[in-house]
């Protein structure tokens, strides 16, 4: 591959970093699945990469929507070439020439990873699982010793940004799928999902999705009913923690249910207004949420006019999803601010590292002078005071050097400032 297309456009401040990746925006599923890495594959790939001298540190992030390799290179161009060959072209030979890859350099790498962790790069904006996937990638890299000081700091910054984005902004607010929106509606009506009695009418894929969402969020009392009892039983066995009810008992079950989710392929309503009215008359005075996910609708729309009955069909759920997506989009500027703050912390931490050898040299020199002077003076003091003398002088040196060391580590230092410190303390620049 030619060197030129991926030359860094600008060298932003921060450590030397390279990112090579592909995602849902750049590659179709058939390519993404070829370059997807499982847990064991990830470790093997990292071990192979680290065997190359041009790669100092590496981390591989692979999800259904992206495969990205983050590298701290020892030789930037060579490292880039190795990653493309080892990770991508070995599995999908045409991937590079088809323009399916993207490459980022230095500061842009850091910024990209923090955006990914915050959910800004996800197919569904604010999708929450990505942070867990980055955690897994970091653990895999750590287990084979692929991450060093720079990537560890970068990953820590990404976790912080991801956590803060979720806690401090609305980037993950609200349901953005039909399955979860039924759960979200229930949470706005009932105080405790655990005690909410759920009746699922229909045992298809949609019911399965809703049931899993409910169980994941704490619902304990689920009942399924279907025209084919056999199908309902198989549904209950597959999903688990679900009771089965004969289809003819569905109206009777309204007496106890709090949330009814209907998703059948019936052409006629399976719950009419009249059935609902009778069911409501026999209930204790509490709300009933009806979610109709069928097309054509399986609950008579007039049922929604009954007092304390909340009826929602896929149009109203879509309205809810669009509203939630809008709120997530509105949170993007806030998330970007968080990313910028965390990037600044990362840059500062990196700048502090730049001064680390000088601080160590300063402390070594201080200790050497102390030891030399104490050794010369020890003969003049009684032997039982020698230990005290050492302790006292060590404390003295530590205190004297504490402030300059902290300042050097904390603040971004120009090369000229480091040179001045060397000159002031007569430190050898070659050491």
């Amino acid at each position: 591959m030619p060197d030129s297309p991926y030359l860094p456009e600008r060298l932003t401040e921060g450590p030397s970093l390279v990112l090579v990746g592909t995602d849902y925006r750049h590659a179709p599923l058939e390519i993404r699945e070829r370059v997807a890495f499982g847990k064991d594959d990830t470790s093997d790939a990292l071990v192979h990469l680290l065997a190359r001298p041009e790669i100092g540190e590496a981390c591989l992030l692979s999800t259904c929507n992206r495969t990205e390799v983050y590298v701290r290179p020892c030789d930037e161009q060579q490292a880039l070439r190795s990653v493309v060959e080892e990770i991508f072209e070995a599995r999908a030979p045409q991937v590079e020439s088809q323009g399916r890859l993207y490459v980022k350099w230095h500061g842009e790498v850091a910024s990209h990873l923090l955006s990914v962790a915050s959910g800004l790069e996800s197919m569904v904006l604010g999708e929450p699982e990505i942070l867990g996937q980055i955690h897994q990638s970091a653990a895999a890299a750590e287990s084979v010793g692929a991450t060093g000081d720079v990537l560890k700091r970068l990953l820590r910054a990404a976790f912080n940004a991801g956590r803060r984005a979720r806690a401090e902004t609305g980037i993950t607010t609200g349901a953005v799928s039909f399955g979860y929106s039924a759960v979200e509606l229930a949470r706005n009506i009932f105080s405790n999902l655990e005690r909410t009695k759920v009746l699922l009418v229909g045992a298809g894929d949609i019911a399965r999705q809703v049931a899993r969402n409910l169980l994941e969020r704490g619902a304990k009392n689920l009942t399924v009913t279907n025209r084919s009892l056999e199908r309902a039983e198989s549904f209950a066995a597959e999903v688990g923690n679900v009771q089965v009810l004969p289809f003819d008992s569905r109206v009777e079950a309204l007496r106890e249910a709090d949330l009814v989710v209907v998703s059948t392929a019936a052409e006629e309503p399976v719950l009419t207004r009249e059935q609902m009215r009778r069911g409501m008359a026999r209930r204790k005075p509490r709300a009933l949420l009806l979610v109709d996910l069928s097309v054509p609708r399986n609950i008579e729309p007039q049922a929604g006019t009954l007092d304390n009955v909340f009826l929602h069909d896929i149009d109203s759920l879509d309205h809810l999803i669009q509203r939630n997506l809008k709120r997530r989009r509105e949170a993007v500027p806030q998330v970007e601010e968080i990313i910028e703050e965390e990037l600044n912390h990362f840059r500062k931490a990196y700048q502090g590292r730049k001064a680390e050898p000088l601080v160590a040299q300063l402390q070594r020199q201080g200790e050497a002078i102390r030891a030399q002077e104490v050794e010369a003076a020890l003969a003049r003091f009684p032997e039982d005071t020698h230990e005290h003398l050492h302790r006292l002088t060590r404390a003295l040196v530590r205190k004297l050097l504490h402030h300059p060391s902290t300042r050097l580590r904390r603040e971004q230092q120009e090369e000229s400032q480091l040179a001045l410190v060397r000159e002031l303390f007569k430190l050898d620049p070659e050491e």
Partner: protein
Amino acid sequence: MVGLRFLSEEVNPPVQSFLAAATVLLPLAYLLLVVVYGALFFSRHPRAERWAPPLLLGTLALHLAYLVGLGFKWHQLPAATVPQALTVVAFATAVVYALVERLGKDRSTGVWLVALIFLFQLLSSLLDRSDPPVLDLFQSPLFVIHICLALLGYAAFVIAGAYGFLFLRLYRELKSGRFRLFYGRLPPLEVLDRMTSGALMVGFVALTGAVACGLGWAMKIGYQGWMTDTKILLTIATWLLYAAALLLRRLRHWQGRQTAWVSLAGLVAILVSMITSNFLAQGLHNF
């Protein structure tokens, strides 16, 4: 008592200055709380999340000092005028809200409660600041209990009214499928219903106690004019309204929506009773 009067006369100028400053500061502090809780409700801003609790506590402390100052200045319960009653109701509502917030760990309803408290305090600060009558009846323990229970009841009804309003707004959005301002920003309907009926119950018990103490005290002094006392008649009407609502809730399974409407109607009745009896009518409660 003589000693107390002597002491209060000595420190009166600083107390006077503090009360004058607090009259202006309190509405401003509540307005600031409205802004902070508003930011919390609309954008869940983390800074608003951090600032809201200490600001609320600080404002409550200032308000408490103001009420103590008023009591110290006049040597009686600071409830002898409409402005004084309004500020006590505002304080009691704020205390109850602070407790609800602390126990429920939920600040999403704060802006609506604090907005009402701000209005009460603003009215109190803007209304006539003439000296309250120093009455012997304020020295009677039974009368003081009567006043305290009535004001506690009013505070509970204010809270019930606010939660009832929020219940109705969320109910409407959930029913219509048009998810706007309230959906996703408030506690669930069930919780709002519990808060409304809980506050109604507390208010009803307090008002019942207030009416009983008032009757006991009126009998003690041989007061005959209660049939023509607007305040008493309106309070009894309000009491009946709440009693009917609570009874129907229990017997006829009245659900959240009806209770919420009653809480709003009761709040209006209380405001009307407070204004008419103090500004438009004559009677024992016109002080």
